[in-house]
Each structure stands twice: as C-alpha cells, then as structure tokens.
C-alpha cells in the first residue's frame, strides 16, 4: 500500500465506519465494536503517516477536479498530522467512554449518535488533511452539518434553540465571511493551495490583506473568537461525549487549526508580520481570553464553565497565530495538542459526575471527591494541564506562547497569558479542592422548584444519593478507563513534548 493510499484511507475509514454503524444499528454490541475497530484502524493509519512526515516526504493526492483549475486535494503536513493524530487517538478513547456513558444514561437514538459521530470525525480528518483551502472549507462545513444532529440529540425545545444558535453562527460566519475571503483569495492569486510562505505576498495591498485577515479570523467561527462565540456554550446541550470530543477537540480545534493554516500557508508568517495588520486581532484574542475566563467564573453549570474555558483557551491559539512569529505559531500548534488532552479529561469527568452522581452544578459538588475519588483526581490533573502547571503538558504550550509574545515584543500579551492562568486557577481548582476537602453538607440548598439536573434519571435508585457515608460510587468502568488514558496523556506530554514540538518546528523552519 502506497502512502497515497494510506492518506485516502484516513479520510475514507470514518465514513465507511458510519455506514457500518448504520448497518449494524440493530445490534448495539456489534455496533459499538464497529466504532471501536474503526477508530483503532484510523489511528493506526494516521500513525503510519508520522515517519513519512518526519522524513520530509509527506504524501499528497488529488482526489478530483471540482471546478476548472480547482481540485479536492489531500496533503499531510506537520500541523495537520498533529490534529489528525489527536482527533483519531481521542476518538478511540471517547468511543470507550461513550459506551459507558450512553448506556449508563439510557440515551435514545444511539445508532444515529454513533453514525453522526463517525461522519464528524471523517470531516475533521478532511480538515486536517486538506491540501488546499477549498477542500478544507468543504469539510469544515460538513463538520458543522454532521454535528448538528449531535448537538440537538435530545430533540427538546432547548436543544432546538441551541441548534439554531449553533448552526446560525457557524454557517453565518463561514458563508458570510470565510467563503467571501476564500473566493477573494482565489480571485487575487489564482490558487488556493497551502504553500509554505503563503500565496498572498505580492498579490494584495496592505488594506486588502488587513480585510482578508479579519474575514478569515472571524469567518472561522469554530475558533470562537468573540463576538462569534455563543455557539459553543449552546452546544453544551449535547450528550457529554459530544462535548468532550467534538466541542473540546475536533470541532473547536478544527477552527484554530484553520486559523494557523491560513496564517502560515495563505498569508505566510513573515508577510503577515511585515504587513503588521494583525495587531488589533491580537487584542481581540486577548480580550476573548480574559473575558471568557471571567464569564467562566460565573457559570455554575460545570459543562458551561468548561465551555467558556474552552473559548478562552482557543483564543490562546488565535493569539499565537496573530503574533505572526515562529515561536507563537509553535506555541499555538502545541496548545492544540495540550489543551485537547486537558479539556477532554475535564469533560469526561463532568459526564461522569452526571452519570454517577447526577450532579451538573458546581455548587453541588462539595465532597464529591469522597464518593468519586478517581474522577476527581483526573479532574485535578486535567485542570493543572489547562492552567499550564507542571507536571502536565499544558505548561509547554503556554511557555512557547509567552516566548512568542516576547519575541514579537508584546510584553502586554505575556501579562494577558499570566492573568489568564490565574483566572483558570480560580475557576477550575476549587472544584477538586472542594470535592476532596468539603463535605456534601456544605452544598447550598437547592432553590425551590429547581431540578437537580435536567437529565435526571427516574429509574435510578435514589437511596444511595442520600447516603452520606463515604462509600465509593464511581462512574461506569469504560468512563474511568477513558479518563485514566487522557489524564495519563496530560502527564506524558509534560515529559515527552518533543514529537509535537519537532513537528511544529518543521512548519516554521522548513
């Protein structure tokens, strides 16, 4: 099998998996096995691309000519490999988690869930491995559409409203701004291929470049740059595995990944730095970092708090890209990987609290570490990584982002990163700390008429919930396994960040 075949397989496998999931829909055990095998095979295929990229011999393939002169291309480059690797690896873990969660939570329409999930991963692969901007855009939109049924999985009015915000903002920004920018780029340059050093240099004046950059930055709505961030909290009505993999990793990372791609391969880092049009977007990103962190502190619903945290962390990457310095790009790329592991752990924990203890509100989680010590410990690790403290991988990406800011002479941005870290401490660490050291008696009384959680499971035996004893009552085993893997990943990335770093360095210093 040639590398080109492997590349095509990376795209085809998830879609084939989706079909198989539908076919085997009547037999849940077989269906879940299919999902797991698909995810495993996909990760294997992506992994086989790694040595090729490191050796400087990445495959590329033209699938078909879509418009005269414009084709659907696949090509793997270091950043895309990082994204594809993370998404496919975490798909395996999330599939394990989903089995525990979806069954433990008695979710309906599970076949549709798994099928759409596979399509969404396929779309994420398409984004990661796209060889030109048109291909990327096609899969970017497919990712939006395929995740819509997942966001609205419960079919309730709340889900419908959230779906409106989700689709409205993502389609609105991508059609209104991004497509405009893409066609404009095509009209100016006559190419959309991702080219080292960019394609715009010499084809566009400073004003045009400035407008284009703004169109791209806001048009890539999945990067959740304020004020186009509302879709991400809205998406939290989805089942937790969706929030975990898609809205902490695949979808949002597709956004910031696209931002970096555009900066590096459409504008070119040096050209962007020279034109100096990205300064105000650094401020927009910095503002998003701080404001979203502040909003996160006010959220009592754990998933919403994590969602705002994600918005803030995504803008780290956007900030790194807009610094238009090599170190900033490296930091941004590494943050894609580091944040993925940290945030998915946190979401897994949030789902575990929901399934095992039926708790979705932070204020109700005092003493939860006594009944769910393992989950709470994983939450602690994930928090450390998101904050950027050792011994977790999150430290490295912040390190390089700060270096990138210094490199561009933006001391103020270093300050923003530091303040944001403090804010992260303030909204994340109290959860495990109260979980371990407070007692359930410290929980404030529920407001009258307030359900404990919207998704309360009526069939559950409530006797245990009121048992104040320190009995261990953990989440289902598959969930625990998934958390163990991702939190171990956070720690492992602290000790071995080199593969990610080396890949990112290849982009900036070819």
């Amino acid at each position: 099998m040639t590398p080109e075949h492997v590349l095509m397989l990376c795209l085809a496998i998830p879609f084939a998996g989706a079909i198989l999931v539908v076919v085997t829909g009547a037999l849940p055990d077989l269906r879940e096995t299919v999902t797991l095998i698909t995810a495993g095979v996909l990760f294997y295929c992506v992994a086989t691309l790694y040595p090729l990229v490191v050796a400087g011999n990445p495959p590329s393939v033209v699938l078909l000519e879509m418009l005269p002169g414009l084709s659907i291309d696949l090509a793997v480059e270091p950043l895309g490999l990082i994204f594809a690797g993370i998404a496919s690896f975490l798909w395996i873990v999330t599939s394990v988690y989903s089995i525990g969660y979806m069954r433990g939570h008695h979710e309906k329409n599970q076949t549709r869930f798994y099928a759409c999930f596979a399509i969404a991963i396929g779309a994420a692969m398409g984004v990661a491995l796209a060889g030109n901007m048109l291909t990327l855009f096609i899969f970017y939109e497919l990712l939006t559409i395929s995740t819509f049924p997942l966001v609205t999985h419960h079919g309730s009015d709340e889900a419908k409203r959230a779906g409106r915000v989700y689709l409205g903002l993502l389609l609105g920004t991508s059609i209104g701004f991004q497509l405009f920018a893409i066609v404009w780029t095509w009209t100016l340059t006559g190419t959309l291929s991702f080219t080292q050093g960019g394609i715009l240099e010499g084809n566009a004046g400073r004003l045009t470049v400035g407008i284009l950059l703004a169109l791209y930055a806001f048009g890539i709505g999945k990067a959740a740059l304020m004020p186009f961030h509302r879709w991400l909290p809205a998406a939290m009505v989805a089942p937790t595995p969706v929030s975990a993999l898609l809205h902490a990793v695949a979808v949002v990372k597709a956004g910031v990944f696209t931002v970096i791609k555009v900066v590096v391969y459409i504008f070119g880092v040096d050209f962007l730095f020279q034109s100096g049009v990205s300064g105000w977007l650094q401020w927009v990103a910095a503002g998003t970092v701080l404001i979203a962190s502040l909003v996160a502190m006010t959220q009592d619903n754990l998933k919403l708090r994590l969602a705002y945290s994600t918005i803030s962390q995504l803008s780290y990457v956007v900030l790194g890209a807009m610094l238009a310095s090599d170190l900033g790009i490296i930091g941004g790329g590494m943050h894609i990987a580091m944040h993925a592991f940290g945030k998915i752990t946190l979401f897994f924990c949030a789902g575990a609290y929901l399934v095992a203890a039926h708790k979705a509100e932070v204020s109700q989680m005092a003493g939860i570490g006594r009944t769910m010590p393992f989950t709470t410990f994983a939450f602690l690790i994930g928090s450390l990584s998101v904050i950027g403290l050792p011994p977790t991988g999150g430290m490295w990406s912040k390190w390089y982002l700060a270096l990138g800011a210094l490199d561009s002479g933006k001391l103020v941005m270093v300050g923003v990163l530091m303040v944001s870290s403090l804010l992260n401490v303030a909204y994340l660490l109290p959860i495990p700390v109260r979980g371990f050291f407070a007692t359930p008696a410290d929980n404030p009384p529920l407001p009258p008429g307030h359900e404990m959680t919207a998704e309360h499971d009526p069939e559950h035996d409530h006797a245990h919930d009121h048992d104040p004893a320190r009995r261990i009552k953990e989440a289902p085993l598959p969930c625990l396994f998934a958390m163990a893997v991702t939190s171990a990943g956070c720690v492992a990335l602290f000790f071995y960040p080199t593969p990610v770093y080396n890949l990112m360095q290849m982009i900036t210093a070819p």
Partner: protein
Amino acid sequence: MIAEQIPALQVVLPLSAAPVCVFLRRPRVAWLITLVVTWASLAMALMLLLHTVRIGTISYLLGDWQAPWGIEYRIDMVNAFVLVIVTAIGSVVVPYARVSVEAEIPEARIYLFYTMYLLNLAGLLGIVITGDVFNLFVFLEISSLSSYVLISLGKDRRALTAAYRYLVMGTIGATFYIIGVGMMYMMTGSLNMVDLATLMPAVMTTKTIQVALAFLTVGLSLKLALFPLHVWLPNAYTYAPSTVSVFLAATGTKVAVYALLRIVFTVFGGVDLFSVSAAQDVLIALAATAMIGASATAIYQTNVKRVLAYSSLAQIGYMVIGISIATVTGLAGSIVHLFNHAMMKGGLFMALGCVFLRVGSVKLADMDGLARRMPLTMAAFVAGGLSIIGLPGSVGFISKWYLIQGALEKGWWPVAVIILVTSLLAVIYVWRIVEVAYFRPPRADAPAAKEAPLSMLVPTWILIGACYYFGIDATRTLDVAVGAAETLLGGLR
C-alpha cells in the same frame, strides 16, 4: 438521414405526440406515450449537445428555406445545454407524475394533463432551439398557453385565479415582446437572430431600437418573473398540481432567462449594450432587490410551496446578476445556475409533491414531525435545502462561487455581499421547515402518513443526487457553461 433531422424532431416529436394523447384518452396510455417521447427528446438533446461540443454550431433550415428569409434553428453550446436541462427535467418528471397526477387530477382530465405537458415541453424546446425572434414568440405562446391550462388543473380552486392572473400578465409579457420584435423588424427588415446581430450596430442609436430593447427586456422579464414583474409566480407555483410545480419551477423561468440571454448577447451582440444604456445598473438593482426581498419574504410564508416559490424568485436574481456582470465568469455562473437551480428546485418540489400525496397539504403547520413518518422524503428535502443554501459539495455552491468570483473580478464587492446575504437568508427559510419536520412532535390528529411510493421517491432522489454529483464534480457542467458564455460573449467582439 434521420440524424440530420434531429433539430426539427426535437420540437416536432412532442408537438405531434400531444394530439395523439387527446385521441387515445386513456390515462395510462397517455402517460406511456409521454414517457417515451420525453426520454427520446432527452436522447436527442444529448446528441445535439455532444455535436456542438465536439464539432460546433448546427444550423438547420426548416423546409430548406435559406436564412434569413426562412426559419433557422441554430444550435450552439448555449441552447444545446438548455435543451438538455429542459429535456432532462422533462423526462425525470414523467415517471414521478403517474401516481401524483392520478391523486390530484380527476381521471377524466388526466389525458389533458399529458397533452398539455407535451405541448408545454414542445413550446419550451422551440423557444430554446430557434434562431428566429418571431418563431420564438410563437413557441413562447405555445408554452404559455399550455402552462395556463396546467396550472388551472390544480385541486385548489385558487388555482383558477392563479392561472388567470398568470394569463393576464403572461399575455402582457408576450405582447411587449412581439412589439419589440415588430420594431426591430421595422428598422432592420430581419427576424433572424444572427442577421439581426449584424444589422443592429447601424441602427442602435435610433430611438426605435432603444424602445424595442425596452419592450423586449420588460416582456421577457415578465416571463422570467424578475422583480417587480414577479407577482404571478408565487400563486401559480403554489396552487398548480405538484407535478406542474416541479416542471414549471425547474424549466419555465429558465427558458425565459435563456431568451433574455439570446436577445442581449446575440441579437444585440454587435453593440456593447451595457455601455450605451443604463440597462446594467437597472438589472443589478432589480436582481439585488429580488434576491434580498424574495428571500426575506420566503421566511414569512406558511405554505412550503410558497417558500420555494419565493426562493425561486431570489434564485432568478442570481441569474440576472450573472447576466449583468457580463464577463465569462459571471455569465458562466448564470448559465450553470440554470442547470443547478433546475436540479435542486425540481428535487425540492418533488419532495413536496410526495408530502402532498401523503398528507394532503404542504402547509408548514401540517408538517409537524413529518420526518418520522416520511424519513426519505424529508431527507431529500433537507439535502435539497442545503444545496439552496449553497453548502460546499452541492451545486448551489458552484453557482455561488462563480457568481461571487465574477463580481469580485469586476471589483463589485457589494454584489458579492448580496449573494452571500441571500445564502444566509436561505439558511433561515430552509431551517424553519427542517425544525418543524424534525423537532416538533406529530399532532394528534395528523393523518397516518407513510413513505411516498418508489415511483416518486426515485425521481426525487435522482435530482437530489444530481445536485451533489454535479456539485462535487462540476468540471463537466462548467466546461459547457464556460464554453457557452464564451460563445455568447463572442458576439460582443
């Protein structure tokens, strides 16, 4: 040689098959005749297209009377492409029609439906194929008269008033057109399009010709339902039988757009029309108003057929925008959108026909939770709707790409913005329907609808499938469209 007579047969075959249906009268027989004739027409149209692409323009002299005195059928890439669009839709509609027509039209009148359908097809094909401006008028009347009858066959009594209103406005349009033709004849003494093109520059500065141009444009704009001459269209599409809505929406206005293209770029091809008059600004303003206004109106409709009708008005705006851009890219965008819009709107109206068959209504209020009862039909509707929005991978995206590119090449970025805003409005009116069908629980008194029969589902999905096939691999359609645009603009040189 029969092959040499194909240009004539293209029109004569459906024209002569129509009275046969009247004589035989049996519904199934009429259907069978229509089926055979339409598919034969498609085969002929494809042969003509192949010939024009490979060898070049065909000139066919009716009765061997030399042009410009006799009538000439002149087939180049432009009309060969439109012939394929019309016959392709025409032949996919017929298998779909059988069940739908039997459900919506009394049995005693079914033969009439097929007769009129064939006449309409013949009229549309005649408009497209002819190279003679007066002959075009004759076919315009044939297609118009038959479409009035087709619309009035609708079950709803309001179909009669809709048909009557269309009759009044359509007749005005045709009259304006023939006045324009008369004035041109007065000044040049010719009716042949190519001949007119050579004579036109000499008389272009006269008031008569400029008035003629105004009459021609207004007359054809009535037929293609350009804002503000569109008022006949929403009711006509809404109250016509489902099959008729499919056919008219996919072909009727497209052919009128084609006629406008011919007049502007062939008959007036010798003069740079857009530089001698304010036509360009006027067309852009009207098209932009149509796109934004009709899309916004579509959002507030409670009848889904009306939503699609207003959406069609907006899409006509796209085509006219492309015409007024008047570069190869813009025109190619217009021409390829003729094809693309025929596919997606045809597919969408077919899905609605399935709904009408099973639910007996296409009101939004009656579609609560319909996706559970008719999953395949509604999936087709969603897929077609995404194409209207212009999702990449669908044909709607291709058209939009070319039109935006055409606008940007000219530096007309506000036009590009209008195109994008129209797409976003489409998101709203499509998603309103999706939400009703997928998120609302079915009403307690809702009829126990089941999935539509295969004879209707398969044609629906063929058109929807074509939306995505030609959306992912658009090189073939675009090669033809670009070739057609170059042919048309060749007249400007």
